[in-house]
């Protein structure tokens, strides 16, 4: 039974609309890069994102001149926006690896139309995330001290510290994500090399494709490698946010020192990541007319993943509150009280609304299939997940054991400029990506077509 018939009978939307062939899939996706004129909308969008990137560079430049004192961080809140944003960005990246690696191992073939740009999203999100700890160390020009290298000072990093674990986890994650994305692109770069009529483009795509010719031997090794890389990336992605949660959970600060952190951080990461996938996929499929490839099925499935991970996150909040009460520890109990009644109570209430209450509308099928509703709900989830990290970092730190060491945190305009600037950097990279590289994996889409089946 071919793919289309199968989906028609089980009543779900197809992964690819019927009627496509190898040639139409190839032409449709590669023409976006090769022949479609660059629209005014692209220039306007890229221009805005680029200006925000310039703002980021300005904020970072000023930071290098003046130091982290320009931010709102003080004692007791030494972490502030930098760590909130770091955790937020790295969490967003997780959905890309989940889609490309875990769903590949689970043979969820619908992933083939969204994995490429989800992986690109991962890469750019990790790049944005990486900026924050580097500039937060205070002397960013010495950030390489985080890596173990033989030096004349005779000192080495402290391997019992979760912050060093984080250096290894995040740099491994960035490297493996980049590799996964690039090897996934090689066969499509060969397609662009062969389709392109511009000599410069032929040369550049040709160099990047490394002489890929689609030999059966090559494909055989390629598929083995791809599967192995997916198998390696799967525990990796689960480990990265676990290690990020260790940055908190290993510390003895009330509100941080809980064993629920690793699973609830991972679920939260995938939750916010799928929200970002939807926020990118919905406008992209509309603007580039890719509704045939990114169908209602993809939107529905992503919404379901959001709903499920959102409920895991809700469970995490409930357990945190329960343990605060059940432990009988007065500091834990106070942390819970302080979240609900302290000076940041509106942040906590908004977080509960954004992450738990509002996304429950995804139970309604009609909203799961409405691109506009999904886009808005995804935005709400992204805000909610950002607030969650704010509550974890700032609200836990601002009132710990001794009342004499309590304080408040007020972000400055430099904090906001850096944060919004990284959103600009992320969007600039996405704009460039959809313009110069195939945003949907062409060769993996070909394998989904009914004509790809070999009849015995």
């Amino acid at each position, binding site marked *: 039974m071919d793919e289309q018939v199968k989906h028609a009978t089980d009543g779900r939307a197809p992964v690819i609309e019927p009627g496509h062939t*190898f*040639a139409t899939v190839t032409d449709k996706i590669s023409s976006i890069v090769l022949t479609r004129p660059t629209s005014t909308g692209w220039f306007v969008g890229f221009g805005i994102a680029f200006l925000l990137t310039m703002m980021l560079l300005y904020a970072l430049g000023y930071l290098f001149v003046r130091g982290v004192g320009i931010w709102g961080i003080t004692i007791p809140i030494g972490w502030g926006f930098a760590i909130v944003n770091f955790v937020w960005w790295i969490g967003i990246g997780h959905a890309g690896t989940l889609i490309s690696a875990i769903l590949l191992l689970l043979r969820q073939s619908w992933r083939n139309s969204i994995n490429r740009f989800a992986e690109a999203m991962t890469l750019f999100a990790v790049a944005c995330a990486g900026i924050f700890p580097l500039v937060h160390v205070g002397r960013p020009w010495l950030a390489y001290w985080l890596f173990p290298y033989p030096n004349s000072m005779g000192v080495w990093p402290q391997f*019992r510290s979760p912050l060093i674990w984080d250096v290894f986890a995040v740099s491994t994650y960035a490297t493996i994500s980049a590799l996964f994305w690039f090897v996934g692109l090689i066969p499509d770069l060969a397609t662009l090399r062969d389709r392109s009529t511009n000599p410069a483009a032929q040369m550049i795509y040709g160099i990047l494709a490394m*002489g890929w010719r689609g030999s059966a031997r090559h494909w055989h*090794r390629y598929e083995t490698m791809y599967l192995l890389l997916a198998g390696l990336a799967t525990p990796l992605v689960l480990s990265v946010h676990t290690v990020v949660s260790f940055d908190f959970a290993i510390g003895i600060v009330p509100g941080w020192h809980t064993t629920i952190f690793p699973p609830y951080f991972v679920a939260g990461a995938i939750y916010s990541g799928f929200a970002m996938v939807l926020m990118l996929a919905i406008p992209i499929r509309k603007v580039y007319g890719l509704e045939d490839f990114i169908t209602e099925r993809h939107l529905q499935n992503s919404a379901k993943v959001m709903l499920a991970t959102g409920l895991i996150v809700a469970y995490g909040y409930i357990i945190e509150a329960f343990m605060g009460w059940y432990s009988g520890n007065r500091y834990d109990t106070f942390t819970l009280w302080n979240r609900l009644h302290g000076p940041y109570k509106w942040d906590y209430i908004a977080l509960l609304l954004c992450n738990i209450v509002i996304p429950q509308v995804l139970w309604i099928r009609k909203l799961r299939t409405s691109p506009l509703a999904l886009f808005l709900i995804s935005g709400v989830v992204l805000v909610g997940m950002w607030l969650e990290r704010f509550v974890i970092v700032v609200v836990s730190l601002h009132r710990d054991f001794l009342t004499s060491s309590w304080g408040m945190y007020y972000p400055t305009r430099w904090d906001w400029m850096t944060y919004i600037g990284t959103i600009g950097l992320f969007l600039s990279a996405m704009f460039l990506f959809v313009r110069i590289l195939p945003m949907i994996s062409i060769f993996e889409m070909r394998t989904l077509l009914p004509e790809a089946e070999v009849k015995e």
Partner: protein
Amino acid sequence: MKPTPVYGMMAEFDSPGDLVAAAERAHKAGYQKIDAYSPFPIEGLAEAIGFHQNRVPLVTLLGGIVGGLSGYLLQYWISTSSYPVNIGGKPYHSWPAFIVVTFEMTILFAGISAVLGMLALNGLPMPYHPVFNVPRFAFASKDRFFLIVFSSDPKYGAQSTRDFLEGLNPRSISEVPS
């Protein structure tokens, strides 16, 4: 004037099924040095041309072992002999704290080995290859499927191989100049 050396004879097919069937028949007919080209991976095609050995998993495993061992030993050496620091009375060799970095190093080295191993075993990057001399080969990255018999095959003959490929009912046949 010397004739141009010939690299092989190439036949073009319309569907993945035709290519697999053709590759199987060529292999059964005794051709050993053959290859097939397709725009996407086809299950069973590598077996059809008689390709079985695949060392990518071995390379990946070795990379992972090297990464994990070097990660653990680096931490062991630093923490016990090069730069021992007493942290809250914990033993210098506090192995549970070393697990995370060991794990990450295993994944990092295994992943890099998988990718570089695949590229190296495939002989890539290789910008020039004789098959690119066939103009129709540009469709191998779009919607056409190709079978080649290399001229180094002991059974290769300019006419006999052409006749054999004709029998497979291809869309076109071209000689590949070297």
